[in-house]
């Protein structure tokens, strides 16, 4: 962590109790750590479910096929096999899983948990085996014979859009799932009359979330209570509960979803509902016995949703000063075999203009069905692709005009006094796309200063004259975050005098037990040690959305703040009666409420809970004391807030091999006020590593028949500590006016501009060759090909 990041204190949004050290903004070490570094964490596969059966799935090896028959006889005879079900055996589950985010224009095709007739991507489950152990279940899977009628498949948007393409879904006359265009101003006219125009095609590969813990779900049905308890590895317990209640026709109160206390990363795919999530609890109910399915990495590679694959056709028009007049971007989005949700392409659609003032915009989405695993959000969620389209063209404009790329950006950036800034497009919730706050030029200048941009350019020139291929790249972005609809916090004084903060959102490593205690501590003026945080159990708080889209600090944080303030008032109301002092004179001292700062006139939280919550059977409450010290508060942002940032990189390309080495990397980041700078830095740096993977290493290959070609870590490279370079962080804190904490999301900004920044730097390094980098990730092989192509020109 850089010392600077911690030293720059954010604006303090909350009045703290006099004398109490404010917790919001403090680099508090995490409460979660001790159990995790001593091996005492409890992840899904660590749960004690004595005697639980284990499941494995039969998955189609064909990208497009009709199931003729499934023979389970041999498998059923295997000792240790408890049960086998095909899709046809479970007609109750032949219900489509609705897209998480839809649009009236979507031509939605049904996605079944266990499709009985027709499969559309390699890895789609067609039968489930439940056995005494996973070992035996896998043995049985191999004994199940499925007769498939194999059909032609498509495995790219280009193939999907070809005139004679095989159709992914028989019901549709082509492979277009959705076609949406948004326009601001008069883009066609502007393109026609712009003094300069440039266009390019950019391809961004498929890549995955790759949480180190794969997916999984365990379930137990209690016949006595009629309650189904489900432990999924999910980012959205309430979403899972609602989906299961819908599938099983059960009341939502009879489905309890509990996310284990520890979760081994999410990154988006775990915010989606996969077919296995519906199948496992159902067979547990049929069997009246606990069943557990822990996805293995082989399954994760083929059956867990991915993201990123898009092809962008972008065109810009600009004047002699490099000022943007118009941007037009038509992009093909690979939706995979089904539309699990439209959030990703819709985000791409609206992220395009970024930090720039652009009077004319045309942004057009062509969403395609392909015979590959469906796509959904992965850290960054559609934004890195839009940033590639925009930021790569900013460099091309500079190159075309012989201007400095930093200068071109600064000339086009929205000024600090223009907020709230209306972009001219419509956000995915239908409201006018509006940036709440930010100061793009000042953050850019701070990053350039830290980067020593001018000096870096001089060093680049020196290196170039010595024959070295050194390049500099910039990448600016905005990130719509802190999305609605709402998130809640339930604060209660428990019988032992602890304030318990219960959240519906569930953590995936972000440190909720720490940061929500920090927020509640400042909201109440109560020391953190008397505050505990519980998460991820639908029986503890009735409504919630989940942890995704860098939204939780905004929504659950604001709800915690609000609830904390109200809980303090309630506690003081009781204390005022018990102490005979006016509430205004009260404050917390340790676990006691004190009147006038006099420890002699104080009452403990335990005493208060004894009166207010526990009570005495049949005895009247003291006059003026409210019963039940508990507050539940929900926060619904009026619209998304916008975090922003800009990255700067220097890279060197080995002319022999095309290998790329990152020499410098500076991240400028503005996510508004910061609750815990230690953890925000962690989010940014972790997101950055993911971006490095997208920029340089990660690609999920499929062949023309839709067969996955990179289905292990031998063929899919995640960056290690050796590949991820050291980063220098520059922070700016522009509070959001849209929530009382003034915070914005921090989970994805580190990822978003990395592919564009690195690509800009690599192309800059190759400028002596005039080589073009238009395909991500940028592998040495692609660099070599780009250099060779221009050599032969």
């Amino acid at each position, binding site marked *: *962590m850089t010392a600077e990041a911690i030293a720059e204190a954010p604006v303090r949004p909350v009045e703290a109790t006099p004398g109490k050290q404010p917790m919001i903004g403090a680099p508090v*070490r*995490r409460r979660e*750590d*001790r159990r*995790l*570094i*001593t*091996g*005492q*964490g*409890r*992840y899904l*596969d*660590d749960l004690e479910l004595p*005697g639980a059966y284990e499941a494995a799935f039969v998955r189609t090896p064909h990208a497009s096929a009709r199931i003729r028959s499934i023979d389970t006889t041999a498998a059923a005879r295997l000792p*240790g096999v*408890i049960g086998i079900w095909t899709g046809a055996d479970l007609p109750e589950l032949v219900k489509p899983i609705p897209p998480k985010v839809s649009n009236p224009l979507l031509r939605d095709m049904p996605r079944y948990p266990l499709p009985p007739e027709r499969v559309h991507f390699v890895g789609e489950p067609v039968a489930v085996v439940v056995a*005494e*152990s*996973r*070992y*035996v279940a896998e043995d049985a899977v191999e004994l199940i014979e499925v007769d498939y009628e194999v059909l032609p498949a498509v495995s790219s948007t280009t193939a999907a859009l070809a005139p004679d393409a095989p159709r992914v879904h028989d019901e549709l006359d082509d492979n277009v799932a959705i076609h949406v265009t948004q326009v601001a101003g008069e883009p066609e006219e502007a393109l026609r009359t712009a003094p300069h125009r440039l266009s390019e095609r950019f391809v961004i590969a498929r890549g995955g*979330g790759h*949480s*180190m*813990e*794969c997916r999984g779900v365990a379930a137990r049905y209690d016949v006595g209570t009629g309650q189904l308890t489900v432990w999924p590895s999910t980012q959205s317990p309430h979403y899972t509960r609602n989906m299961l209640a819908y599938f099983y026709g059960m009341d939502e109160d009879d489905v309890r979803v509990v996310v284990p206390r*520890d*979760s*081994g*990363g999410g990154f988006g795919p775990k915010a989606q509902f996969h077919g296995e999530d519906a199948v496992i609890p159902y067979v547990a109910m049929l069997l009246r*016995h606990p069943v557990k399915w822990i996805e*293995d*990495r082989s399954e994760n590679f083929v059956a867990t949703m991915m993201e990123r694959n898009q092809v962008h056709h972008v065109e810009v028009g600009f004047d002699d000063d490099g000022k943007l007049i118009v941007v037009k971007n038509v992009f093909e989005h690979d939706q995979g075999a089904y539309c699990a949700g439209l959030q990703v392409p819709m985000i791409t659609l609206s992220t395009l203009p970024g930090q720039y003032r652009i009077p004319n915009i045309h942004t057009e989405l062509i969403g395609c069905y392909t015979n590959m695993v469906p796509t959904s959000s992965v850290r960054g969620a559609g934004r890195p692709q839009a940033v590639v389209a925009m930021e790569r063209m900013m460099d091309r404009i500079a190159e075309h005009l012989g201007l400095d790329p930093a200068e071109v950006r600064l000339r086009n950036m929205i000024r600090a006094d223009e907020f709230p800034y209306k972009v001219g497009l419509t956000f995915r919730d239908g409201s006018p796309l509006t940036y709440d706050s930010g100061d793009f030029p000042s953050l850019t200048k701070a990053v350039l200063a830290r980067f020593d941009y001018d000096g870096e350019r001089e060093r680049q020139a020196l290196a170039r004259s010595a024959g070295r291929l050194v390049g500099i790249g910039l990448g600016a972005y905005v990130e719509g975050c802190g999305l609605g609809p709402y998130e809640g916090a339930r604060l209660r004084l428990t019988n032992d005098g602890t304030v318990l903060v219960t959240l519906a959102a569930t953590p*995936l*490593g*972000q*440190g909720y037990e720490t940061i929500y205690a920090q927020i509640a501590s400042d909201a109440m003026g109560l020391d953190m040690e008397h505050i505990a945080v519980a998460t991820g159990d639908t029986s503890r708080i009735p409504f919630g959305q989940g942890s995704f889209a860098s939204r939780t600090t905004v929504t659950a944080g604001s709800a915690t703040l609000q609830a904390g303030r109200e809980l303090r008032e309630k506690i003081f109301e009781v204390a005022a009666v018990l102490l005979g002092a006016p509430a205004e004179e009260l404050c917390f001292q340790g676990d006691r409420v004190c009147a006038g700062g006099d420890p002699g006139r104080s009452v403990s939280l335990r005493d208060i809970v004894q009166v207010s919550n526990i009570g005495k059977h049949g005895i009247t409450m003291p006059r003026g004391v409210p019963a039940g010290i508990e507050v539940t508060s929900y926060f619904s942002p009026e619209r998304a807030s916008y975090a922003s940032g800009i990255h700067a990189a220097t890279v060197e390309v080995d002319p022999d091999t095309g290998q790329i080495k990152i020499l410098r990397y500076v991240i400028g980041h503005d996510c508004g006020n910061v609750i815990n700078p*230690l*953890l925000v*830095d*962690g989010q*940014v*740096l*972790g*997101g950055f*590593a*993911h971006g490095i993977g997208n920029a340089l290493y990660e690609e999920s290959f499929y062949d023309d028949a839709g067969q996955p070609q990179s289905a*292990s*870590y*031998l063929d899919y490279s*995640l960056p*290690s*500590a*050796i590949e*991820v370079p*050291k*980063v220098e962080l520059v922070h700016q804190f522009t509070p959001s006016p849209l929530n009382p904490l003034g915070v914005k999301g921090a989970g994805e900004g*580190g990822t978003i501009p990395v592919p564009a920044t690195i690509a800009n730097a690599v192309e800059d390094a190759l400028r002596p060759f005039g080589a073009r980098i238009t395909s991500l990730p940028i592998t040495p092989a692609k660099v070599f090909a780009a250099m060779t192509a221009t050599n032969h020109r």
Partner: protein
Amino acid sequence: MPESPSGTRTGHETQVVRTTVNGVEREAEVATRLTLADFLRHELRLTGTHVGCEHGVCGACTVHVDGAAVRSCLMLAVQANGRRVDTVEGLAGPDGELAPIQEAFSKHHALQCGFCTSGFLMSVAEALKEGPIETEQAAREVLGGNICRCTGYAGMVDAVLEASQTSYPTAKGEHA
């Protein structure tokens, strides 16, 4: 429903394995195909060792066998017979005192979801036994055999350098 003895529900052939895990002698009858990782986790209930890829790349399952850091997903439980196995649960002292690398991981926010953490700690612990780790590059190489998807490794690099300083106070390091 049929009940089987612990550790044998995984196949037809079993064998008795006797091994010392974190200093405690353990004996169990296990299926011969049971991996060491599954044995530690599901038979001995030492769930601090995590399974992330089962093909030896991610490193989440790293443990020490006879003092050497190895992937427990690539060993069979029966191969631990007669050997000493140490897991993340044994890193802290008997009184709960954290090892320097554990303390440094927390201080430098070197973990987020924590799933990969045990494997990193075991890899670093082995490297630290061999000698000081004095440069950022050396720290990155020690960390390079494990994968973390959350942290971006910056905190881990600082943690390794600090733990090395704690363990080898006279060695020179990049960080004071």
